[in-house]
């Protein structure tokens, strides 16, 4: 008797799939329901079902990562609202997919494919250890999963540069979007952040900030000053190889020290 596991963070959808599967494939025994990726992997190891139905978008560990952990030890069906993953998976024959919301005929087609694969693999299953089902297109499975995982990561990939500055003010820890920062100036221990909404003091050093902020927009012009280039109105050369940076709409004038003057030489 074939066994299955369902993983989806939305309980209504888990229950719906379970109910529909009961109608479409009565012999299938549902041995586990998982609420998120980590639980899915745990329950899979515990029960070793033949088929796993995986929602792609789940908190923590997502469906693709679960599929990578499962590998070819079970037949994998992605249940997803994202059509594009589905098409890639299906073309290779390595995985099956269901697009939400799905109806009975679609589920029936998927069930039929699954039944065929289970039948064929158990028929020609010599030399295969128990619990291991060689899925058709096995060689294609892992690269495909890797690609899907990479794509998912790309969508949610945090940028490489600082986007928010956390600054403690009297009332709370403010989250300042880096785009609104005008300049940063440090003295002995603290750094002053001047931004469109006010000023705040943070404990980080200019050097740390210079490394983390996007160099296309933020430039260190002095041992203790970093300025947002988009807020600069002009740079005025002074005596002794120094210069002054004037800001748009603000009275402050920031000094450019000799060692940083080269930043402005390219014109």
């Amino acid at each position, binding site marked *: 008797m074939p066994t299955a596991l369902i993983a989806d*963070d*939305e*309980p*209504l*959808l888990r*229950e*719906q799939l379970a*109910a*529909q599967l009961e109608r479409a494939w009565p012999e299938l025994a549902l041995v586990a329901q998982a*609420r*998120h990726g*980590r639980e899915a992997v745990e329950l899979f190891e515990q029960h070793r079902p033949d088929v796993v139905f995986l929602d792609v*978008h789940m*908190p*923590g560990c997502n469906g693709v990562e679960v599929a990578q952990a499962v590998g070819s030890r079970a037949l994998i069906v992605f249940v997803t*609202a*994202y059509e594009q993953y589905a098409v890639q998976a299906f073309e290779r024959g390595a995985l099956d997919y269901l*697009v*939400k*919301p*799905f109806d009975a005929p679609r589920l029936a087609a998927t069930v039929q494919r699954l039944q065929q694969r289970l039948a064929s693999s158990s028929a020609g299953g010599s030399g295969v250890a128990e619990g291991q089902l060689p899925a058709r297109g096995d060689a294609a499975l892992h690269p495909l999963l890797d690609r899907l995982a990479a794509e998912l990561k790309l969508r949610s990939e*945090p*940028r*490489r*540069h*600082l*986007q*928010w*500055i*956390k600054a403690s003010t009297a*009332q*709370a*820890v*403010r*989250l300042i*979007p880096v*785009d609104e920062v005008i300049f940063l100036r440090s003295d002995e221990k603290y750094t002053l952040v001047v931004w469109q*909404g006010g000023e705040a003091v943070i404990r980080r050093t200019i050097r740390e900030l210079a490394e983390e902020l996007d160099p*296309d927009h933020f430039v260190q012009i002095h041992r203790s000053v970093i300025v947002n*280039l*988009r807020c*600069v*109105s*002009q*740079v*005025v*050369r002074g005596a002794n190889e120094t210069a002054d940076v004037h800001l*748009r709409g603000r009275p402050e004038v920031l000094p450019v020290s000799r060692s940083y003057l080269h*930043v*402005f030489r*390219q*014109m």
Partner: protein
Amino acid sequence: MVRRCGTFEPMASILPPASSHPPSAPPGPLRTLWGRVQLAIGVAVGAALAVSPFFATSLLELLWRTLFVSLVLVGVYFGVQRWPVRWLPRWLPRWVAIALAVGVAAPLATFAVYLMSVRGDLLAFISNDARVRGFFILASIGLVLGVMFALGALLQQREAEARAQALRFELERSQLERQALDARLSLLQAQVQPHFLFNTLANVQALVESGSPRAPEVLRALTAYLRAAVPRLHEGPTTLGEELQRVRAYLQLMQMRMPDRLRFRIVGEGGLEGLPFPALSLLTLVENAVQHGLDPSTEGGEVEVGVAREADPPALRAWVRDTGVGLDPMAAPGTGLQNLRARLAALHGPAATLNLSEGSPRGVHAEMRLPLS
């Protein structure tokens, strides 16, 4: 554009064009120069004609003198204008310098022209009473008219600059308006997210198929949300009450989908529902709270939406607080948040604020403050 000596600009590709003319340069100086020269000639002719009856010298001679003086004065006027700033003493405003220069130049030029007429013979000049009298008359006329016209020209210039400034503000305002329109358009475009829609519909279908009694209520919530989400370009300003309805509909839908991971409540003063409020603003913050705050967490959390009126200065404060995973310093602010900031800036200027802070023990607290007129 006139550059000050020693000024240079950093990497041009990053900065927008540098700010405009230094305040003292008039627009189209050559044109104004010619205009002023013409005026000077006209005045010279007029002056010559006016005083001619009182002078022994011929009209032509007079004309030559007045023309010379007035052209010299025009030259002085423009010359002092071009005078580099750092050669002027700091306490002397430029316009006083110009007026003084013209005032001093008038008698000097007149003297020069009289000297020319006696071919440099100073004694011959001084001894002749009529000439000396003529000198004083012309010099005084030159002085008075010169200073008068100089001041008039300066005033005109100031007005022209004020108009240019007004035009620049107008341009900036229309640019802001265009930005606001762009922000609104992309907001409208981004509203109907297929992932959200189809996932929600899948859940509704599940409810309907299982014959759940909750199905009608959920469908109502979905309709309420979609009314807001479907683009309507002619949408006018909405009220706080309508926005809260949308927020409630969205939260009800999301709670259907993640009942074990979302709790929510909407709190705050009553009686504020009729106040105007930017559409889809609180909704953006709530969507962020759910999608980026609660959804990534396996335990989920709570969302609180609140409104309150402030007395001094009169303002409307609206907040969305979540107990989710908080903000990753490397995570880019989403387009929703950026759009919202742009819209608030365009609609209310700097008086409207949108601030994010860390919740405690975790999560994000987003607060909007709108001025109330």
